[in-house]
């Protein structure tokens, strides 16, 4: 049977629209109280997955369990889930109070307690005095807070949010991010959050589920998926990486020698190569912040590869600069903090790659 600590479990979920498979064989276990983000590019099936959990779409195959009980046969209105939409979806003909109280009407809650619950929800989203207004009299950010209040006031088993912040402008989005995370932590409510914005995902999540083309690419904590991508797709999608085709040598104790085509051999700790099996070919991921550019005379650490590089473009960003450098026949990206002066365009520098800063992932399929 299922362990009770799992709030939501998807097993072998498939969703097909005609011939098109939007979600293929998805397995996912979500722990009680955690904040899980479905992250991926547009069209990868995030919304489809969320709608299946919500009961707005029926999976073509597979089973969905919420708190151990299979919900695939349970209609939406009996699932006790809180849903928040990108466009807020507040009832325009009802006051804010009636919007928030809406879900309470369908639960066995004494009338006398409804007002108190609504008020506590409005306090929680820091809009205690707007009960008598209509949705159109609130700003976008305020409307989204009310949508959140409406979803949490029913004390749902799971809170489902589909890009709730993407209709807000940049500043407001940052505030709402913090706010949402605070409310989620305070209530300890299991939350599934859909976004295609990696910084949102990294900032808010306990667990990130990176999706592409209807399947899960990687599941892990924010630091985990950022530092240890298991596929070229994840490395490319999160942050800024250089992907270098390479040949994997035989493991020597805790070290794996990796020969980057045209660059030479670099020694990686075996712990950075776990995503690659016995394969001969692989892709070396070098984050742009881990490609260090130094003067010609700078010392080179023992496990590092130092390559002569020509700076072709300098993109000055204040404390840091983004460089495009040519190494052999390749162009790589480096983001380095600026110590004294940025490197100049046209300068000849030394590009330093340390083995322990790199990750080896399976060769990209083309």
């Amino acid at each position, binding site marked *: 049977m299922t362990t009770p600590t799992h709030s939501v479990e998807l097993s072998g979920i498939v969703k097909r629209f005609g011939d098109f498979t939007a979600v293929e064989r998805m397995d996912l276990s979500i722990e009680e109280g955690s904040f899980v983000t479905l992250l991926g590019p547009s069209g990868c099936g995030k919304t489809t997955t969320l709608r299946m959990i*919500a*009961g*707005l779409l029926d999976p073509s195959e597979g089973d969905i369990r919420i708190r151990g009980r299979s919900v695939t046969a349970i*209609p*939406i*209105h*009996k*699932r*006790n*889930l*809180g*849903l928040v*939409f990108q*466009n807020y*979806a507040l*009832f*325009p*003909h009802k006051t804010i109070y009636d919007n928030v109280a*809406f*879900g309470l*009407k*369908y*639960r066995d809650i004494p009338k006398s307690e409804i007002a108190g619950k609504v008020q506590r929800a409005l306090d929680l989203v820091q809009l205690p005095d707007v009960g008598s207004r*209509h949705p*159109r009299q609130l700003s976008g950010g305020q409307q989204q807070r009310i949508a959140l209040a*409406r*979803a949490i006031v*029913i004390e749902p088993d799971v809170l489902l949010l589909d890009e709730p912040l993407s209709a807000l402008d940049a500043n407001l989005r940052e505030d709402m991010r913090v706010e949402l995370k605070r409310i989620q932590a305070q209530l300890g409510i299991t939350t599934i959050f859909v976004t295609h914005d990696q910084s949102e995902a990294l900032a808010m999540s306990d667990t990130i589920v990176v999706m592409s083309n209807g399947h899960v690419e990687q599941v892990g904590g924010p630091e985990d998926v950022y530092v240890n991508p298991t596929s070229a797709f994840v490395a490319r999608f999160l942050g800024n990486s250089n992907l270098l085709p390479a040949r994997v040598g035989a493991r020597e104790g805790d070290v794996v020698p990796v020969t980057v085509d045209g660059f030479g051999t670099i020694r990686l700790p075996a712990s950075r190569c776990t995503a690659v099996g016995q394969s001969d070919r692989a892709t070396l991921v070098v984050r742009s912040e881990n490609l260090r550019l130094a003067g010609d005379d700078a010392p080179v650490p023992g496990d590092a590869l130092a390559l002569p590089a020509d700076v072709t473009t300098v993109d000055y960003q204040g404390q840091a600069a983004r460089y495009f450098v040519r190494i052999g026949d390749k162009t790589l990206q480096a983001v380095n903090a600026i110590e004294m002066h940025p490197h100049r365009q046209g300068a000849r520098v030394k590009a330093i790659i340390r083995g322990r800063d790199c990750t080896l992932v399976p060769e990209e399929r083309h």
Partner: protein
Amino acid sequence: MTERTARLRPWYLLSPALATITFLLVIPTCFILVYSFWLRTATGADQAGFYLSNWKEVLSDPFYRDILFSTLRIAAITTVICALTGYLPAYFIAMSESRHKSLMLLLVMLPFWISYIIRTMSWINILGTTGALNTLLIDLGIIDQPLSLLYNEPAVILGLVNFLLPFMVLNVYVSLEAIDRNLLDASRSLGASELQSFREVTLPLSLPGLAAGGLLCFVLSAGTYITPVILGGPRNAMFANLVFEAIITQLNWPLGSVLSILLLIVLGAIVILYNRLVGIGQFAKTFG
């Protein structure tokens, strides 16, 4: 652009419409209003002047009052039937995810391609003593003698519903179509069943369309003239038939003018009252 031209701009843009309304509606109505105070002399000629005798006659004679009330009653019954029978197809089409949605809408509008008079007359072939329905019932042995289904009030109402239903369906359809589907998903996720979601979300949000369609049906049926002529009996005359009778048959322009203006005032008052109660303008603001 100066503030003055900015302020005047709406008027420039409205001017073609205003000119049309003024020349084709306001001025003729003023003429009718003036006629209503003229006097019809014994010789049959109209005498210009300011006489209240026509007004006194119309307002004091229960004949006119009774026909006015029965006209309003027929219009109200027609409107209610249109609302009840028009909502369902509108709902079905709006909620349908079929690719043939526009075809379905086209079918709703199909009757407009056939002259209203022909559509009304075709009921004679269906409901007449030798019409389709009676023939069928006799052939099936359900009745011996043909039923008299025509030339009564239900036949008039049937003809009006047949004429006005598409107006209701289209109005309701437009307001249903405008409802954000996420609202229904939200309502369902909060615990409302499909029926409860309909009552709490879909129905209230489609009221503006229902109200607009209702008003249209009411005003059009209250002013109708052809349907009672074709499908009604001698006692089913409606108010517009009196106007026709006065002006065309009796050539009594002053009397016909009084009747026209009276109908205009009554319908205008109803529209204003209805707007206050149902608040069409208010609803429009909700979505503005």
